[in-house]
């Protein structure tokens, strides 16, 4: 019943979901999401680079680096 709730394009792309166990379904479904998220986050970065001034890009990059440093040092 849960498969029928998924977007149609995802059901078409992954027609065998009902035959898989939950771990295999996780790999399949999240593999598709990873692809999509990577593609559109890249497109949005390109849009931001086209429309943002250099000082904003610099400020954003510094903040991301600091957050990454804090995040990785805690993990």
């Amino acid at each position, binding site marked *: *019943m*849960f*498969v029928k*709730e*998924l*977007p*149609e*394009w*995802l059901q078409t792309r992954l027609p065998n*979901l009902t035959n898989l166990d*939950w771990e295999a*379904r*996780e790999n399949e*479904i*999240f593999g598709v*999401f*990873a*692809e*999509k*998220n*990577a593609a*559109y*986050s*890249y*497109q*949005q*970065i*390109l*849009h*931001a680079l*086209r*429309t*943002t*001034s250099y000082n*904003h890009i610099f*400020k*954003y990059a510094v903040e*991301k680096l600091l*957050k*990454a440093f*804090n*995040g*990785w040092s*805690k*993990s």
Partner: protein
Amino acid sequence: MKIASAFLKELPLVDHAVLYGSSYLKKPLIGVDSSAQVDLILAVKDPLDWHKQNLKTNPKHYSSVCQSEGPEFIVDSVSKAAGIHYNPFVYFEGKRFKYGVISVQDLCEDLRNWKTLYMAGRFQKPKLALVEDKRVTIAQQKNLRMALAVGMLTLPEVTTEEDLFFRISSISYVGDNRIEDPSKVRNIVKGNIDKFLDMYLPMIKDFGGFDIDNGAVEVICK
């Protein structure tokens, strides 16, 4: 959040507005960070017209590139991406804001079909609606239903509500290289279980197929 509502009055009219991110979500053991940037998503009928008006009333919200190139440039550029244009580093009454503007049509399409997942993912986590458009609210119901289905299909038959909401929150983060903190998603869920339940519980009851009780989730039929 009063300051966010006051900020909206500085902008041209919007059809739908939500507050999300660190100024709304609690961090485990800390609570809401009152110094955090205020993040907003604004859906408008006609982004070209909206940016035209906003460039006149709030030119400083835009980068020098957008100010010189104009609203057509913004709308054309964003149409090649996920449809949302962000104005970052905007200050209002001493607070920092970042707001994204998207068309109602593009937002609804993503909520209903996960065309880009870019907006749908943000709408799968708790947020506060400041202005509501019925079309967005209806499309959002579909988005939450699909997210729940993914959660139930990718977890064992007996699990916890924390794992369910973690799985749902991961939909929009997996594969996104910009995520800076590996514990970010888990922390969002841990600090905001109550908000996730408010958001998903009515849908869970309506959905059927599984039970959620006292932190445990059990699938009855798949």
